[in-house]
């Protein structure tokens, strides 16, 4: 996959749980658009009006902790977020994001600030911060996850391969 993503950073702190990404009261739906309308609303009510398609959500430790709701990465993806960058992710969120084809980049040390202009190259996991000139290297994904992400998600992967 030679995909290059470009956008601005929306920066949040540690332990952003899935109830804050998309509250449980909105999750019982198959309509992804209705999820996107409420994404991050308790944490950052301005997010929806401020963000532009292709932007990045950037966080500290343990992004996506809490429930197993796949609605969390789906809400971000449908809202137009191109990728999530964090120091590290909660495990179910991480799997879910890859499974639906939302790139997640683990950068153990970063100092990306609100509004920074970023470019991520998914082929080599490099993230360029054009505002500061810094370059970060994301941790490589395990082989099986890479294959799933390259297929565009687990649905496509299994439609093609039928099994693991």
């Amino acid at each position: 996959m030679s995909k290059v993503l470009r956008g601005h950073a929306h920066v949040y702190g540690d332990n952003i749980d899935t109830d804050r990404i998309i509250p449980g009261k909105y999750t019982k739906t198959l309509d992804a658009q209705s999820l996107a309308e409420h994404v991050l609303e308790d944490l950052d009510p301005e997010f929806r009006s401020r963000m532009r398609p292709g932007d990045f959500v950037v966080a500290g430790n343990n992004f996506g902790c809490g429930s197993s709701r796949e609605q969390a990465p789906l809400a971000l993806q449908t809202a137009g977020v191109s990728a999530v960058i964090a120091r590290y992710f909660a495990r179910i969120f991480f799997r879910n994001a890859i499974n639906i084809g939302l790139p997640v980049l683990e950068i153990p040390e970063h100092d990306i600030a609100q509004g920074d202009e970023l470019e991520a190259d998914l082929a080599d996991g490099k993230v360029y911060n054009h505002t500061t000139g810094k370059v970060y290297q994301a941790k490589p994904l395990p082989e099986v996850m890479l294959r799933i992400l390259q297929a565009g998600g687990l649905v496509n992967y299994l439609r093609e391969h039928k099994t693991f």
Partner: protein
Amino acid sequence: MRGMTTVEKILFQKTGQRVRPGDIVIAPVDGLMATDTTAPGAIRAFEKMGGRHVWAPERCAFVIDHAAPAPNERIANLHRFMREFARQQGIRLFEIGEGICHQVMVEQGYVRPGYLFTGADSHTPTYGALNAFACGVGSTDLAAVMLTGKIWLKTPATLRIRCHGQLRPEASAKDLILYLTGKVGISGATYMSVEFEGEAFETMSLASRLCVANMTAEMGAKTGFVHPRGLKLPYFFEPIEPDPDAEYVQTIEVDIGELPPQVAAPESPDNVYPIDRYIGTPVHYGFIGTCGNGRLEDLQVAARILRGKRLPKGVRLVVAPASRSVLLDAMLDGTAHALVEAGATLITPGCGPCVGSHEGVPADGETVISAANRNFRGRMGNPRAQIFLASPATVAASVLAGHITLPPPGDQ
């Protein structure tokens, strides 16, 4: 060769491979479960994958528990979607009122010792109380299991927590796991398996063990195990114990003999303190239920505290039994009667107000004392309410007093 932890042993039994932490395996699964939050998405993904027939329908279960009975037409239609798919595929669907997925799976024998089980719910590690390797997944992962009967897994490293001593009578399994969650932290066991051992667990009821394993999800763990010594189940099983020379990333040793009742203060389940710090905090609303503490022994403890008393004005208590069978038992032995007579509202067995999807949403500025396992902001449906987590005994005593208080001695 070094010994194996419990999780490594189960993976070895499933795949024939001696795995080490970090190794990726593709393993056959013994069963799966999804709820009304996750099943609809899993069905969609399954169909998009080209799936026609689910692998082993008799090993699959759907549970309508998160918003049950349906509060509006949108959710009613999702429930119907689940029912139709389950009927076509021959999957057992547990209806509204049958209980919370994690309680129903245990009661109905869907999960057994030694199983590798996947549940589309983050509290799936609850079954670690049964000596099963159970991990929570999202809808698309679950769809893949429905299609293939397999899952890819990264072998987790194991964190061992050894508890020394016995709990005092005023401290319960919930106080212990709250304390340990505070100690490990909300991400302290991310990607790991947690193993609990120590004499205190050996005499614990199954309900208490389930309560302990349940909250490993709040440590970020992939799965958790309560050592099976002393575990009693209504059928024969071969316990799986870790080898004496198994390797752990870390062993945490704790003395629990003096542990006082604990609370998790807003807004995180690891924000845990001895109850002293919050005694006197006014509460408006108590909740007893969930896959953590909605079992018969939990309701009985509350009933012992509330029997013959009345909730004060301005304070309410909602009780959601973990399953229909828990409700029936509570009706038979007078527990339900005592709670309702004291002013509690008994609601449908299921998740109840835990996740804010339907009934029992707190108002702005209210303080909830809850026997649930999560208190993130907005968790119960209102980001302007605050939630304290505690044992059922502390919840019952606190609603009776109108403020956070210690449960009476000997009432856990």
